[in-house]
């Protein structure tokens, strides 16, 4: 992904150092900020595409930075990094204007998948009909078809397919699916997701067509009409 400017706000030197390396390797142009006040000024004056914000910061907390820049009308997608995993912490973060919330420690793949999902969301036309190859999901009619043949899906399978289609071409992790489709964050939940993905695959791939849902080992799933 070319030309993406990212602001990384993290006060822990060691964490920020490997995060910066990993993000640069992903092809992002990364600016690093180590305290809240500096981050606030940078966020307001530089045209970033996405901000990765730690909550525990000197001078101004991550919450305060977020609230302030949102009040100033800055709509850049913000991903919060936090050591706190309670539901109420997550809700507080999203309420303050964050677009995503990731609990430490995380895998780098998880972080990059989420950043890409945030960048993608901005270009998502969000129309009522989602397509991938000959697969079509009509959200108004609440109907899925593949090559014109109708596929019967349960509401959960439908929601899962919608999420995958909205992020087609980018990897989505199990935790992202759990948070968005199930609104749940429980350890053993990744098993539930794997089972649902299997059901969904059996229904939409059903022998004939090409593979649409690909497993990305150790990270999650990818829906794409072309082979990855």
């Amino acid at each position, binding site marked *: 992904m070319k030309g993406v400017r990212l602001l990384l706000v993290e006060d*822990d030197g060691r964490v920020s150092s490997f995060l910066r390396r990993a993000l640069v390797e992903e092809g992002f142009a990364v600016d690093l900020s180590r305290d809240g006040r500096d981050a606030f000024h940078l966020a307001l004056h530089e045209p970033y595409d996405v901000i990765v914000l730690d909550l525990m910061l000197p001078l101004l907390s991550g919450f305060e930075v977020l609230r302030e820049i949102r009040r100033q009308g800055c709509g850049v997608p913000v991903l919060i990094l936090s050591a*706190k995993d309670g539901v109420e912490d997550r809700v507080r973060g999203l309420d303050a204007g964050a677009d995503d919330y990731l609990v430490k420690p995380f895998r*780098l793949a998880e972080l990059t998948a989420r950043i890409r999902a945030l960048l993608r969301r901005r270009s998502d036309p969000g129309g009522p009909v989602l397509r991938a190859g000959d697969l079509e999901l009509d959200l108004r009619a609440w109907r899925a078809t593949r090559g014109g043949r109708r596929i019967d899906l349960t509401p959960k399978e439908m929601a899962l397919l919608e999420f995958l289609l909205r992020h087609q071409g980018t990897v989505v992790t199990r935790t992202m699916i759990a948070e968005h489709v199930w609104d749940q964050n429980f350890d053993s939940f990744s098993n539930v997701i794997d089972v649902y993905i299997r059901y969904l695959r059996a229904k939409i791939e059903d022998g004939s067509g090409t593979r649409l849902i690909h497993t990305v080992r150790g990270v999650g799933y990818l829906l794409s009409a072309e082979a990855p």
Partner: protein
Amino acid sequence: MRKRISIRRRLTLVSWSLALVTAVVLALVFHLRTRANLLAEVERTLGTKCDEVITVLESRAPHPTLEEFLWVEIETNYRSSPYAYVYQVSDAEGRVLARSANLGDAVLPVAGPRLEGTDGNAVLYRTERELAWPGRGHLRVRSERLPVAIAGGAAATLVIQTGLTLEPLEAAARKTLIETLLWAASALAAVFFLLWFVTARSLRPVAAITRKASRITSTNLRERLPLAGSGDELDQLARVLNEMLDRLEGSLHRMEEFSSDAAHQLRTPLTRIRGELDLILRGHVPEATRSQLERVEEEIERMSRLCGRLLLLARVDSQSEAAALLGDRVDLEDMVSELLEQTTPLARDRGVRLGRGPTSAISIQGSRPLLVEAFLNLLDNAIRCTPEGGEVEVSLERQDGHVRLAVRDTGPGVPTEERERIFHRLHRIPRPPAGPDEGTGLGLAIVRAIAQAHGGRVELECPPGGGSIFGLVLPIPPRP
């Protein structure tokens, strides 16, 4: 539940009954005293009238006949009197010497059978029949026997009687009583409404406190109960409750600070290790080293999970019973339905039938995320240790003041000596290993802590037929 009478109704009724009793007693006392005073006045008047007759008898020049004299001198006086007096003068032998015309044919006896009292040498009585004025009641008569020197002549013993009908007096007293009672009745009606509104007004702060207190939860713990500023008992109650909220907020704040610091301190090193490891694994690493590093990564994964669970446990512990106190209303049946639907594929995948036993619509006060956590832990546990072809059933039932959320499995059950220990922290469960997603040994400890945070408990039953039943027993608060 027994129907209770509201404080307002009770206060109003008790105060009003007291006012009623007071009013009735006062009216009766007033009536009796008035009547007695009027009667005393009548008696005095009768005495005065008697004296007048004597004066007339003693002072006047002799007339042709005594009767004529009396008639002229006294009758005219008595006629003009507004009160209907009667008089009669007899000699010692009982011969009537003179009498007022209004007595008609009747003769006053010297002393009536219904004696009412004496006054010096006078006797007071009431007549047996209605004399003089039919329909106007008995006469009150004063008979005085004394020597009188008529017109300055020789003294002769005479009986002088004066009388008065009591009817006008009794009628006035009755009328006064009725009027008093009518006034009292309207005053009592007014008092009733006054009390009803005054109690409502003075109890209004209670309603306000109740409304406000039931809205304060952990998310708006900064809010306080309204103070009227009057310094009365209700104000003091609100102040004490507010102080309690201050302490609660303080401890919640300290707890949040601790859990936030602990999370930061524990997770930052894990983040660093994991990040560095991820970076290494992204590069070119010899295959043997890679598989070693991947095992390290698995261990870090496990450490992270353990760390998360420990932090959760610490958070639940420090909430003690506050979860139930400060939580929102949680619809348990709704929660069970939702989680059953979500875990059904997982159970099906493992060849376990996930069933729903009897459930009833029950809501309790609590933290939904924590209750979901506890229930999912039990459900996950049950599914894991039930062999293929087995069954897991969930039920939700009311049990006198409590709700019991039970998860029954057909697994191997739990040996007697392990039944208490499996709830201990970090205790390894000697059950079939859970595969790659091995437990942290904290699951049941977390369930127990969450139950306790809601003022409840976890029960374990192992029926003789095999399997085990884990029951989450939580109190249902009485409806406000």
